[in-house]
């Protein structure tokens, strides 16, 4: 399987995050983290190809669209890609909960790095609450997003590898 399907799905998600959903100011961190989570999921799935440089490019696109500092979401996508690539895949462990736990750790790491980078960027402590809310929501949404990613890839996977997910 080449990288077309994963990249296209993440690209659509990037464009969707830019749409004016009307979310409150405190919830603006959730949607970009969903995109980062998709990168993580695609990298963790067995038999998929999602090079790190493509994750960086999609992150850059998110930076450009959001108007934020160039390289910020690219860095977050890269962290997720690295973590996803090193995670024991579902094929090895057949355990979604373990992957969920890994994502929880990655989400916390991303939240901390975001806050530190943001504070460094503006030379003042930025509000932690929206970032923490986004990280928490992304952890809760992980099974949904993983299921979505598996659903996108369905047909090319052996169902027995995903107990209860396909």
């Amino acid at each position, binding site marked *: 399987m080449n990288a077309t399907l994963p990249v296209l799905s993440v690209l659509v998600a990037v464009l969707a995050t830019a*749409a004016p*959903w009307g979310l409150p100011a*405190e919830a603006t*961190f959730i949607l970009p983290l969903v995109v980062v989570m998709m990168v993580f999921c695609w990298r963790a799935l067995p038999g998929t190809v999602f090079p790190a440089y493509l994750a960086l490019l999609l992150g850059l696109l998110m930076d*450009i*669209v959001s108007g934020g500092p160039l390289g*910020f979401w690219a860095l977050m996508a890269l962290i997720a890609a690295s973590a996803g690539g090193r995670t024991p895949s579902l094929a090895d462990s057949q355990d979604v909960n373990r992957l969920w736990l890994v994502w929880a750790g990655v989400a916390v790491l991303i939240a901390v790095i975001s806050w530190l980078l*943001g504070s460094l*960027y503006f030379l003042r402590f930025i509000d932690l609450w929206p970032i923490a809310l986004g990280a928490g929501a992304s952890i809760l949404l992980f099974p949904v997003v993983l299921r979505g990613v598996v659903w996108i890839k369905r047909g090319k996977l052996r169902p027995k590898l995903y107990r209860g997910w396909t």
Partner: protein
Amino acid sequence: MRGGHSPFKPRPRRSWRAPGELLNFTLYFLCAVLLVLSRIGHGAVTDARESFVDLTAPLLEAASTPVIMGRNAVSRAWSYSGLFGEIDRLKAENEQLKHWESRAKLAERNITHLRSLLNAVDEPALHFTTGSVIADARGPFLRSALVNLGRDQGVRIGYAVINGDGLVGRTVDAGASVTRVLLLNDLNSRIPVLVGHAGVRALASGDNGAELKLDFLPDGASVHPGNEVFTSGSDGVLPRGLRVGVVTGSPGAFRVRPHADLSALDVVSVLFFDAPALTRTDPPPIAVDRALSPSPDDTKVPAAVTSSVEPPPMDAEIKQAGASATTPVEGVAQAPQ
């Protein structure tokens, strides 16, 4: 030096058994470089971003259209659910507005009479153009929105952006067909304002939250929750008298709740207010012949003559800012009093 590495001997070369590691390191380094360039506001980064946003504008617009339609459908469904209560509320509000209308007409007559006695100069007209929000900014750093108006429509950096409720923000980037609007609640937003009937001067600062902080209030200033907040125009960028919001909070921690719902913007208007400060802050526009033009159609006006000091053309159509539209429209509005 026995037993250890001699500084004069070449160290054993580390072999990159996994080229992916090297690539990963390069990518992380690239992110760091981009962040630094972005922080210092490198021109190449800014130009590349503007060009790319222009390129992706059709995609963003296509993505935002169904979202906006869905949002409107949901809000309509909510409003239907409380239709009877809403009718009662609107009836009561209509009664109040009728009362205010008579008072406003009386005040208008008095003002006209007093202005004629004083030979006062008429307030300048503000040209504006209206477009739709096609993208929201998401992240811990920025509160901004992309609007489908650009330099081709005469938009420049620093113009005030309003909707039907009040001030929304100001333009910070202007591409050929897309403009980025820095919202009032952004961390970098600072708006000089007048508070209440006394016109107390202060600074409304964004902190990425839903409300703005009210800074630099004079000691003992007469400010109370519920006071209206307007732009003062003292920054030389925004026109004076635009509605911003109302004061909330308590003394020592006053905040401003914007009238405009900044999290659910749909249609906004850009005011062509060419203050002298803009000529110093805005880089040369793409279309030189449109520089400082009061409206896209009026391109023959010299740069020194700004629209804000000219009366509106007699045949110009007067439109209400914030009117529903999906494509950019242009018009002229009387400057707020």
